[in-house]
């Protein structure tokens, strides 16, 4: 029996099952890579530890030396996990923005949500303006959050207006980016030297202020929001066939878009308000996931989570080893790592999309 004949008797169902299995294996491998990246991220720092020491401190904290335990659990683990949860959040936010707006360029960064957050943060840093006067102590993240949500809602409601095309939405997003960047420049111009350096630091993105509280906040948000997206997995996938097609399959397109955009706004706004502007991961994470597992959301969503987390975790590792002894701003490295990798994926991919 030739190979050709053998293939002919394999049913579509069997082929489908084997493809699903392959995807699960890929997801598992990505998960292992992520775990290794997290461990490596925790091993690197002013006091270098071996991977074995890190792993023993993680899995057997009671048996580890006090200094090692404190460094790993209290200092490095929140930072390493912050990279993971922020990467996952931004990547999923980008994935669902691209899905509901049917646009490959959609991401928190390109649609102006990050720029709006930066402007909100700068308002607090320069002018001491608290958009929510109830919590002045946290006015930087709260301002960033409010502005990011406002930008996301603006994009959403603009996208629901009659006659507004997908291209228009991207143009609106770009207009938002320029507007907020201009407003930010004005604030920088007016800022004191101290406030200026705070803004610059904020807009480059950094995990150094990570804490268990912030990690837990983002992790909880992911734990709540991801199952909601997963529940809509078939409907969100159908959206990629076009609104008419999805509606004909029984999807309430308008309601799905609204609730997804609401959740996406949270996913984009909260991490940015904690760690500053980190571009690219929200754009590249989903594209990596799409090229690896396709757009069936049952696989695309977990793949976006893992790709975003891995991208940012690997970036965190690189930010420590490019110049030994110095930690470079994460936002800068994300683009430096992401762009070449993205090129490889685009030119190496045989799948056609967008």
């Amino acid at each position, binding site marked *: 029996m030739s190979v050709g004949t053998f293939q002919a008797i394999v049913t579509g169902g069997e082929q489908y099952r084997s493809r699903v299995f392959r995807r699960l294996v890929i997801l598992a491998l990505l998960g292992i890579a992520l775990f290794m990246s997290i461990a490596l991220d925790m091993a690197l720092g002013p006091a270098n530890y071996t991977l074995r020491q890190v792993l023993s401190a993680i899995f057997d904290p009671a048996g580890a030396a006090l200094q090692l335990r404190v460094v790993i659990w209290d200092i490095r683990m929140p930072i390493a996990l912050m990279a993971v949860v922020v990467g996952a959040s931004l990547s999923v936010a980008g994935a669902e923005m691209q899905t509901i707006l049917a646009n490959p360029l959609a991401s928190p960064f390109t649609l102006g949500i990050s720029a709006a957050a930066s402007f909100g943060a700068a308002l607090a840093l320069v002018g001491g303006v608290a958009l929510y006067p109830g919590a002045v102590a946290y006015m930087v993240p709260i301002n960033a959050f409010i502005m990011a949500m406002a930008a996301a809602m603006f994009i959403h409601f603009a996208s629901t207006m009659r006659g507004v095309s997908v291209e228009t939405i991207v143009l609106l997003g770009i207009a938002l980016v320029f507007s907020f960047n201009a407003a930010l420049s004005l604030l920088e111009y007016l800022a004191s030297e101290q406030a200026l350096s705070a803004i610059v630091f904020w807009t480059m993105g950094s995990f150094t202020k990570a804490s268990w509280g912030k990690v837990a906040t983002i992790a909880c948000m992911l734990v709540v929001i991801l199952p909601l997206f997963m529940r809509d997995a078939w409907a969100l996938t159908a959206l990629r066939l076009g609104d*008419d097609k999805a509606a004909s*399959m029984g999807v309430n397109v308008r309601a799905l878009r609204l609730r997804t955009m609401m959740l996406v706004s949270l996913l984009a706004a909260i991490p940015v308000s904690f760690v500053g502007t980190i571009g690219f991961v929200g754009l590249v994470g989903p594209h990596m996931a799409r090229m690896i597992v396709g757009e069936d959301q049952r696989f695309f969503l977990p793949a976006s989570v893992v790709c975003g987390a891995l991208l940012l975790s690997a970036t965190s590792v690189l930010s420590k080893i490019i110049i030994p002894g110095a930690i470079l701003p994460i936002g800068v490295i994300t683009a430096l790592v992401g762009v070449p990798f993205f090129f490889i994926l685009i030119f190496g991919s045989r799948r056609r999309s967008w």
Partner: protein
Amino acid sequence: MVALALDDVGASYGKAKVLSDVTLSDLTGGSVTAIIGPNAAGKSTLFKRIAGLIKGPGLVELSGTARGPRSICYMPQDTGANAVLTVYESVLLSAKQGSGWRVADDELAEIDAILKALHIENLAFRGLGELSGGQRQLVSLAQALIRRPEILLMDEPTSALDLHRQIEVLSFITDLAKRDGMIVLIALHDLNHALRYCENTIVIAQGKMAASGATPDVITTGMLRDIYKIDARVETCSRGSPMVIVDGAILSITLE
């Protein structure tokens, strides 16, 4: 038996009224009805209104269906070409809307059967973006049929198909309608297909129903002149089937 009736059905987009006063008495299971009319006459809008995808005045009355309005399936003209999904996945997701993640073996077997019936099993694991327009139309049909509709609304399902495939698909659909007692409405531009495959025809022009009835009674020289602005005859060919023969058009696009 499944039955569908429309009573003064209309639809608007914003303030623009695009369809009004469409009334149809009982269409019953097993019947295939052509919806014809010029471009932008309101044919797709009528389909969307019947399928409940847009709202408007009037009543869409269904009877004898097992799943109520969910038994209606609207098949748009095209299916997304940008999605990174295989043909197989796109048909699966049509079948699984509103249900859980687990995919049972018999659901996969059903997809295999439909792809085979439409002779597109060789495309099963090709990406939607790699397909031609005609191949995508066949996939779109598979996505509709997997939902086991009792009322199928097909919006120009053969517009991108070669002649052989057009005849194959229309014969398949008419046979399926009769076998399963399904009501099929097909928007068509090829009036000879309407004459050959559809016992009834509805003419939509400028957002209103201009005529309806048995296809040979509707597709007449007068209708072709009034609605399509063409000089044409409907003649019986040597095999006894009526055919539209176009002599010329009342031209609105001319060279200076």
